């Protein structure tokens, strides 16, 4: 093999020929993983569509009960965090590791802000009795309001879980940066975690108009 004669960094796994092969395998693996993530969310999106079609009035009234200001604010927060994440990935490829760590901390901070705002929203809804299914006890929404809030909590809860996992991944990435395991040659992990974060953002970009805005 010609690649064997090329200089081979120590971090390349023994079953790969070259750094390029290892990087492109990791990259493809992440894209496939994101593909299955979309299908994972698709079940809930389908449930949303089916019941919106069955109970259009409930869905319109339900959207009005959600706090559009906080939802919009959270959209801005999450979009900004995608920017800082993209800057972190760019800095990795340039090998500027202290910059990477700074941008990652900023992303984590914005992610935490998102979760705080979300929990404020949740506590309002819970306080007003807008709980899923047969726990639903609000007067504000007739005709299967529990179903609307069941889907609301399932979709946003699953999304929030992905945000929390993303924060953990970024913490791990920072630790690896500090150990010197991330540099301009070994950038794929940062790139992959970046891709994951953008997907989390993208899911929210669909959730926000679907749940809060669509008339």
């Amino acid at each position, binding site marked *: *093999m010609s690649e064997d004669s090329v200089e081979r960094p120590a971090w390349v796994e023994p079953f790969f020929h070259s750094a390029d092969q290892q990087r492109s395998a990791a990259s493809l*693996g992440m894209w496939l993983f994101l593909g299955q993530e979309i*299908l994972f969310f698709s079940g809930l999106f*389908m449930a949303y569509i089916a019941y919106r079609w069955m109970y259009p009035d409930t869905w319109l009234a339900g959207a009005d009960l959600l706090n559009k200001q906080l939802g919009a604010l959270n959209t801005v927060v999450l979009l900004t965090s995608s920017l800082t994440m993209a800057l972190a990935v760019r800095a990795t490829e340039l090998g500027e590791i202290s910059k990477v760590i700074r941008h990652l901390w900023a992303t984590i901070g914005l992610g935490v802000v998102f979760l705080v705002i979300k929990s404020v929203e949740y506590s309002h809804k819970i306080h007003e009795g807008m709980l899923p299914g*047969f*726990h639903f006890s609000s007067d504000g929404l007739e005709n299967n309001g529990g*179903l609307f809030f*069941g889907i609301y909590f*399932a979709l946003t809860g699953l999304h929030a879980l992905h945000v929390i996992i993303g924060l953990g991944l970024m913490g791990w990435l920072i630790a690896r940066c500090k150990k010197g395991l991330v540099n301009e040659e070994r950038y794929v992990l940062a790139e992959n975690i970046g891709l994951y974060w953008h997907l989390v953002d993208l899911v929210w970009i669909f959730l926000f108009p679907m749940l809060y805005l669509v008339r």
Partner: protein
Amino acid sequence: MSDNSHTDAHNEPDYLRASTGIKSWLFSVDHKRIGVMYLIATTLFMMLGGLMALGIRLELFTASGDLIDADTYNRLFTLHGSVMVFLVIIPAAPAVIGNFVLPLMLGAKDVAFPRLNLASFHIYMIGAIFLIASMILGSFDTGWTFYTPYSSTTNGPVAWALTGVFILGFSSILTGLNFIVTIHKMRAPGMTWFRMPLLLWSLYATSAVQLLATPVLAITVLLLFLERLVGIGIFDPSLGGDPILFQHFFWFYSHPAVYIMILPAFGIISELVSVHSQRKIFGYKGIALSSISIAIVGSLVWGHHMFTSGQSIYANLVFSFLTFFVAIPTAIKVFSWVATLYRGNIQITPPMMYVFTFMALFMIGGLTGVTLGALSLDVHLHDTYFVVAHFHYVMMGGGILAYIAGLHHWWPKIFGRMYPQKLARITSITVFLSFNLTFFPMFIVGSRGMPRRYYEYVESFTWLNQLATVGAFFLGTSLFVTLGYLIWGAIRGPAADNNPWGALSLEWHTSSPPIEHNFHGQPTVDAGPYDYPEESSGTDSSSQWVPA
């Protein structure tokens, strides 16, 4: 045919002896060891599921429910179905044969993500523990299909089973992801897409379905779990939800899951039919691309499980048409296999015996599937024993027996030893006969209206059910003998040649069993996997292996 010169030059221990101790197995990242661990696990679960099947058949020996009560019967068929589907047939061919053979066939040292591969196995075992726990902790009796509203309201340990299925799904997704990346990125130099052995095409299609359909099952069981836990109402009619939506979600995965079970079987048969008739495969591209088209069209036919569930008649028409359509790529494969055999130098080896068994049983299973896809007939046959017979012909006669064929083919490669050939040939015949004795009567009682999942039936069906029960015990015995001689072969059998069947693909050109890193040096390829000599051309068969 066995050019061992390049392997004898070194004296490296094979993968079975490279390291010792239980930890060196349980935490091994070697794809071959992981394959063997899956082999042991799926075999144990198959025995468990098989014993439950025998319990069911024993109860059905007489028309009245006299051996066990109705609740026990419900638990038995639920666990038989769940164990066989989620713990045996879905993982068996991809995770055992795929794990062992895929990197070897590609000329790679391992899969792309060996640690993820090991994680898949650990996740599989954890999921299995949850599923088995539901059996011990109480009465899990929803059937393997978990239909709502029964599954969301019953008091049984359904949540345990759901957790198990959710976890098992991740194992399946990660295996599929790993195989797709491996096939894309780890092919040896010269191993172009159309030089890949056909098993790899079918594993690629299988992996795509695993990756894209399983997450839908994950969200479905998660929603059912939430339904039971907090009553979110999505499947509950009293809260405005729709139980039919559950059926759509469930079959959106579980019909493609049928192709997760049968596509690797198609790949195994494509390999074996060519190698054991020493003849170039007929219609390589047709077989390869039909795997892909079965994966695509097969993902769009889930509605044919719901013809009688109150689905719209227009949806029924489309699903019925697409169901018929899947028969076309499937028939392309079957006709190509038969054309490969034509004037081939057919070897009556044990794997080939199972190939013939597969072809006969799968034809019956496949054609009765087309019967069930017809809207008017399905109304009559829905939820009868006709359906039970149909899917056992496909799942067991097709999926499991092709897997057993594959085990007989790769056994000498996996363990470096051979099993008794004559006994294997005889057993394959008793498996074939007892299989038909078990399941063919079910077509008859089913078409006459005997419903599935009942522990009693009308007197007039007695003798056909008794035939089925007798057949089931013969089948169980035959498979037990098969297991016995395979284990004997693996431990005590005569040492096997590196290439006992005269195959041309790469896995036969390393030692048996292979060394830990599969090959000495990097294999290169400049030919297809089935270049057996053409008739009267006088040329030699040329292996894929290019000596360095």
